[in-house]
């Protein structure tokens, strides 16, 4: 199942300047893991203690989504950082 992950510009330097990366996966978490496995340096921003960080804000097809949501062929996952504490 091929899913597109839209990469925010701050992370382009870790994805060979690719703005969109196609990965395989059946859940959002699978897809982010696949992205990180291909570009391990993304871990420094997107992961904490081996898991996708709680401040990673996920959208699928322009709608809010959760890390465990299922994805379908052709879906677009948008990844953003959203630190919320004050």
């Amino acid at each position, binding site marked *: 199942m091929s899913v597109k992950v839209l990469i925010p*510009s*701050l992370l382009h330097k870790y994805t060979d300047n690719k703005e969109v990366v196609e990965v395989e996966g059946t859940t959002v978490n699978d897809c982010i893991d696949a992205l990180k496995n291909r570009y391990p340096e993304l871990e420094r921003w997107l992961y904490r203690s081996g898991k996708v960080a709680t401040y990673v804000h996920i959208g699928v097809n322009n709608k809010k989504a959760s890390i465990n949501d299922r994805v379908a062929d052709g879906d677009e996952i948008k990844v*953003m950082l959203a630190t*919320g504490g*004050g």
Partner: protein
Amino acid sequence: MLSGDDRIRYGRQIIYPGFGDSGQDKLKDAHVLVVGVGGLGCAASMYLTYAGIGHITIVDDDSVELSNLNRQMLHWERDIGKKKAVSAAGKLRNINSGIKITALCKKVTEDNADQIISGVDVVIDGLDNYKTRFVLNAACVRQRVPFIHAGVNGLLGQITTIIPGKTPCLACIYSTPPISKGTIPVFGVTPALIASLQAMEATKLIAGFGETLQGRMLYFNGETMEFAYDDLVKNPKCSVCGTGRRNFKRSRK
């Protein structure tokens, strides 16, 4: 008009090239609103106070708790149980008696946001949740008040300067308010750093020099000691500042 004491007190910043008496005068005439006096709001309001912002209003409805004391520098052990706005205002007045500090023990809501920001020159985001940030962002867009957004998590922080009508607003950046589950981890140094940058942004905006974080989000990753920028894009259909907005219930002032 600067006094003789002002020239001494703020002398080290007045001598900064391109700032001078006129820059300090602008700070003295400015009214800055700090919403939330937690980790971000304490540090931001302290530096704004030291810098000589003429009027600072701080808003917070919470009370000081022991768990705040790893990061919220204006609240001390003796303040536990006091309203944060009152606790912070007392310290700020002791730091600088030459400026006006107004404390509001209120929660910002859709019903009072426009009234609270009315007449201020800059709004500083010291909040701990996106729901209220979105309320504040919408009010700032309606009243065309610059909004310096920031947030922290652990050793990670972010900041951008929103100029209504010019830059993307918070609802352009996030189409829906991000939700934080559970207690957000934070080391005191993270909000201290990011809030210092908020105060720096406010100083430059008010005095009119330098470049600010307009249209870009600065992220700081303290775990790897990296700074990075994200280019922000205005959403033409934004529900707050674009064609997707509702007819305003409140008229713009």
